[in-house]
């Protein structure tokens, strides 16, 4: 294991734990109303949307169909595992058919 890898992993672990502990320690001081509170409330969803969108938009028709299948199955069943398997399976089938 290289030193740069160890330093990177420990750095990632340290900032992530600091964030986890920070929320707990700051809980009583974070604003509950107003602009900053609204901004923080919207941050998790926005980060996830920003994470997912380029992966779907930058992919081909297989990724588009996969995303639609995941969405559809989740809305119908509310089952995380079923939606995930459905999405992966449709991407696999699309690529097997050479439509990736």
């Amino acid at each position: 294991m290289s030193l740069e890898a160890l330093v990177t992993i420990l750095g990632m672990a340290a900032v992530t734990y600091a964030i986890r502990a920070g929320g707990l320690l700051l809980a009583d001081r974070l604003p509950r109303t107003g602009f900053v509170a609204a901004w923080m409330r919207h941050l998790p969803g926005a980060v996830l949307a920003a994470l997912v969108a380029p992966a779907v938009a930058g992919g081909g028709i297989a990724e588009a169909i996969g995303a639609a299948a995941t969405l559809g199955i989740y809305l119908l069943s509310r089952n995380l595992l079923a939606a995930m398997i459905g999405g992966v399976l449709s991407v696999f089938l699309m690529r097997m058919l050479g439509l990736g």
Partner: protein
Amino acid sequence: MSSRPSLIAIPDSFFLGMRMFVPVALSIAAYGLVWGVLAGQAGMSALEVFLMSALVFGGASQFVALESWTPGQLPILAIVVTTAIVNLRMLLMTATLRPQTMHLPMWKSLAAVSLVADENWAMTMGEYAKGRGGVAFLVGSGFCSWLAWTGSTLIGRLAGALVDDPARYGLDFAFTATFIVLLLGMWKGKGDLVPWLVAALAAIVTAKLVPGNWSIIVGGLLGSLAGAIVETRKGRADVA
């Protein structure tokens, strides 16, 4: 006997949390396998995979880190900063857990939040709303999640040589699929539409223009700001 004080008394809700989390852990293990395979292809050793999964314990940030994992010339600072931004949502998650940790000594709460991740946090909050949940439930489901993530990423790394090309089986899509589902689970109403659309569009445009992980940062910040602007303006309009 419950009245007898004991150092190793583990509350029932710890085991309840573990049991209830098993179906979610299976899905985590599915994309954990994928991450392990991809980590091997990016040049990570099995020890590095184990340490990162065990200590960082943040799937989204670990997927993002792989994109810049270039052994020999790791952009250490860039990876650490991106990790912080992707994981910043955890600040809100542990802040919302405060009412459940109030009665505990701070050091116990600080130890417990090291096992907070998206899925077990969401489940604990859901249970708490029904009058259950609590720190032991959080730690039980978190431990189950940690085992699934650390174990599956390590297995993926070790078995990676057997799967010549995970993309051929659509396995690379498991991550996208899981996060689509997590995102849908966060839907609270129409107020989410604007921030999510702004975040998605900003991220797509940024990803086309700039290499690396900037799309997550730009999209996340612009989307959440848009949400806050719409919400506070609407609030003022309601008052007026």
